[in-house]
């Protein structure tokens, strides 16, 4: 198919209307030629001989009559070794390279090769004459600690391909030919280590999808114990501004027990991305002994960058996630924030003069969000290995009101809901996940029965607290008051976690279980406390001891000391322990 050309006939913000000849496809990429620069855009609507394009750049200076070049390809990303450690914008432009070329500012119309020009140690996995299918491994290269599979391009037809030639073990450039495949009719195709894939099409080259039933450890107590997430699952973090969404995502990206983390900073503050950019190369991943950066890809389209590229940034991120999943790895995708992406859709929908839905969001909002989260999943690959993509998205609801369309559309499709509350963040109770409103459908690290019992105390404590606000402390019985104090203790010493404390910021599952056991004993004990003053004193002391305990390493002698001090304090007041 010959590439088409067109002419600009209208400009409205980042939407440009183009008159074209011949045929073009929806979601096809086109470049608007403005002087010497070419601005990338995507066809989103076609009517007669006119196409509406969303342009991924500022449209200043575009004039009616400017030429548009279509490329006959949907918006795609390049996949190959070297993606890890990279920092891309929403269109997979490598930002550090761009900075070297253009300086402080993002110059529009500059598109660089996203795959670093490197040589890799290639080890073939097939030989001439073998039959392969798209997604099958042709060979491997070591990428950091991972074995990066070089696969038959996913876009090849789903037919048996015969390996005509394959490169011998050795060092090859990433763009060098490493294999020639031929289809049953004898048509030959050359393969390098790189191929492209359209971002809006899920990669489904696995044997079967599995139920996400394995806990994904985040080292955050309230999540792992009470509101777990699962490998291959989805979760969302809605919260008003200032409630700590990004800090929570940041903690997760550091500590999560997965192979690869992809951070999609979508329409949020640039400063937050910078923290990750500067910190991760310094932080060591205890699992691999390498820096965190070596397992991370950052896609950032911050709030002042062109709006249309926000949408592509989440798709770019999830496509890379699916690519690494095909290698048998566990990938965590953190999208911050999906609301900005939804707003970008709303802006475009408004320019297209579509009939608006609720709060002017387009009517297809829900199906688009659902389709995105559905790209997560735990799968069994054709070679039998298990791999997953987990998606965690933050939502920034207008006015902190969870009733708004984006939050509601997201809640329908996720497996865990970590709702952040302004009340808790105002009181500096971090992470500000509301323990009662939030829910999770995934299994956690601790026996769910005991977790439920602990949760029941939180519920009851909250009820008593509400009641106390009406009838006062003097109108509350000592028994109730003790339950209330227990719930406060659980909150202060277990649910809350100090992300700045070197020890408390990341708690391994074993330690969580250990601390929870003792906490559980305290919660389930019948306590000999005669009046409220005695109860308050006892729990103040208990809380202090637990907080100190949370601050010491497990191999520190003070760990055991503090533990026995807690046990002692408990047995001094406990009449009989339950179970």
């Amino acid at each position, binding site marked *: 198919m010959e590439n088409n050309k067109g002419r600009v006939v209208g400009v409205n913000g980042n939407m440009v209307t183009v008159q074209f000849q011949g045929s073009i496809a929806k979601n096809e990429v086109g470049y608007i030629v403005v002087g010497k620069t070419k601005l990338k855009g995507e066809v989103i609507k076609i009517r007669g001989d006119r196409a509406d394009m969303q342009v991924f750049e500022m*449209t200043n200076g575009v004039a009616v009559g400017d030429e548009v070049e279509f490329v006959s390809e949907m918006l795609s990303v390049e996949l190959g070794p070297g993606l890890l450690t990279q920092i891309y914008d929403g269109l997979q432009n490598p930002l550090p390279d761009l900075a070297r070329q253009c300086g402080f500012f993002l110059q529009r119309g500059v598109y660089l090769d996203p795959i670093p020009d490197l040589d890799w140690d290639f080890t073939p996995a097939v030989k001439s004459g073998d039959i392969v299918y798209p997604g099958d491994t042709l060979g491997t290269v070591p990428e950091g600690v991972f074995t990066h599979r070089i696969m038959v391009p996913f876009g090849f037809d789903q037919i048996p391909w015969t390996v005509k030639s394959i490169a011998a073990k050795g060092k090859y450039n990433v763009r060098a030919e490493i294999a020639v495949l031929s289809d049953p009719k004898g048509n030959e195709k050359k393969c390098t280590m790189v191929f492209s894939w359209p971002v809006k099409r899920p990669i489904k080259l696995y044997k079967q999808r599995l139920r996400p039933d394995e806990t994904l450890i985040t080292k955050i107590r309230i999540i792992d114990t009470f509101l777990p997430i699962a490998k291959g699952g989805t979760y969302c973090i809605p919260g008003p501004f200032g409630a700590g969404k990004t800090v929570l995502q940041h903690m997760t990206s550091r500590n999560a027990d997965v192979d690869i983390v992809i951070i999609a900073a979508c329409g949020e503050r640039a400063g937050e991305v910078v923290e990750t950019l500067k910190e991760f190369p310094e932080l060591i991943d205890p699992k691999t002994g390498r820096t965190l950066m070596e397992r991370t890809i950052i896609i950032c389209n911050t709030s002042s960058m062109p709006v249309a590229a926000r949408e592509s940034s989440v798709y770019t991120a999830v496509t890379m996630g699916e690519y690494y999943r095909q290698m048998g790895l566990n990938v965590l995708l953190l999208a911050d924030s999906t609301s900005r992406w939804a707003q970008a859709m709303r802006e475009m929908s408004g320019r297209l003069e579509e009939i608006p839905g609720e709060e002017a969001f387009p009517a297809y909002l829900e199906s688009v969000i659902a389709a995105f989260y559905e790209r997560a999943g735990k799968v069994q690959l054709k070679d039998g290995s298990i791999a997953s993509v987990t998606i965690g998205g933050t939502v920034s609801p207008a006015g902190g009101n969870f009733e708004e369309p984006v939050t509601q559309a997201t809640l329908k499709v996720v497996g865990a809901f970590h709702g952040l509350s302004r009340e808790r963040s105002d009181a500096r109770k971090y992470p500000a996940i509301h323990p009662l409103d939030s829910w999770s459908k995934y299994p956690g690290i601790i026996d769910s029965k005991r977790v439920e019992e602990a949760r029941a105390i939180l519920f009851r404590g909250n009820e008593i607290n509400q009641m106390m606000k009406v009838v006062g402390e003097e109108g509350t019985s000592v028994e109730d008051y003790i339950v209330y104090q227990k719930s406060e203790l659980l909150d202060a010493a277990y649910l809350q976690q100090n992300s700045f404390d070197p020890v408390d910021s990341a708690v391994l599952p074993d330690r969580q279980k250990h601390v929870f056991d003792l906490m559980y004993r305290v919660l389930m004990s019948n306590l000999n406390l005669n009046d409220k003053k005695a109860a308050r004193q006892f729990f103040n002391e208990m809380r202090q001891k637990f907080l100190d305990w949370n601050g010491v390493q497990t191999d520190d002698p003070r760990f055991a000391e503090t533990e026995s001090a807690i046990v002692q304090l408990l047995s001094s007041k406990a009449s009989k322990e339950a179970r």
Partner: protein
Amino acid sequence: MQKVYTKIESIVGDVITVRAQGVRYQDLAMVGKSYANVIKLDGDLVSLQVFAGAKGVSTTDEVRFLGVPMKVSYSENLLGRVFTGSGKPMDGGPELDENMIEIGGPSVNPAKRIIPRNMIRTGIPMIDVFNTLVESQKLPIFSVSGEPYNQLLARIAMQAEVDLIVLGGMGLKYDDYLFFRDTLEKSGAMGRTIMFIHTASDPTVECTLVPDMALAVAERFALDGKKVLVLLTDMTNFADSLKEMAITMDQVPSNRGYPGDLYSQLASRYEKAVDFEGAGSLTILGVTTMPGDDVTHPVPDNTGYITEGQYYLKNGRIEPFGSLSRLKQNVNKDTRDDHRALMDGMIKLYAAYKDSLEKKSMGFMMTEWDNKLLKYGKLFEDKLMDLSVNIPLEDALDLGWKILAECFEPNETGLKSSLIMERWPKKPEGN
């Protein structure tokens, strides 16, 4: 390229349309004697927003396309001057047209940003201790109309150590403009100040240009190595002007009449705040008035998601709840080892005080603990929250420990034992 068109097709609000060829999006034009810029192209139909307003524009007025986008002059000569939103002198001085730079330029490459690292000391404990202001931060002051936000802004501006102040006034009352001018002149700061002022009676379009003009100039000075503080007051007026323009253009409104791109519009301005490695920095302090003290109103709500925290001004005090400086962690680790813990501890207790206060107002009996909290809350408000307090950070921290010791036993504070051992004020001998 200076083509002249003399047939205006339509005039709606401040937007006119004219049939013309070869016009570029966002180009500047002259409509009669006023500037205007291109905001929409549809075939040969060009929509222009007229800066001085379309009042009195006739269908036969001349429209001249200048073939360049909106620009502003940049040089040392700007210092001490006052301009309107379209860059015309407002102080009777000469017009400046040398070294013109584009406004609304591209955003900074995130890979070139650096982690903010310098605290800006203000002498206000509620800022220095609890929500530290950091160089290159973007922070709005959330406030109800009638609160002394401009006074607070002016005070921070004068006490903060910066090289240059750029003031963008939007929808200002003329009195407020005079207040800023007089205060800055009196303190001798006018010589390092540039003002872009849109007063409430000026044309709406100019209001939407003020932040772009102010930030374009500030960005250049920052690139030239200056520490620049940009004050924007009041961003709600800016948003309202955007709303007015959007409705004129028949855009579908999203929330309470505001355009769907309000977030992006605000973000592209606030995100100009930056610390240039090897050059200067740009810090933005804005004011966002909240209609009806409603923080969920679209303007403060969207602002909160963009900025790195906010100062919540209420009853003449910066409220500890709702106020937040997201960058404080970057600097408060290097101030004093007790800074963070004390900050958190005191706020938790202040939250408990608020609960007790509520109980008291409902007529419940006060327990011993409640009474302790009540005493603490009163001391906290009088000695630390009052805006007239002007003490350095270290003194404010010492004062914090003193207040805690006056009210509580050490284990009631929820602070770590090691810190209490080190910092808890010793009771005087024989007491």
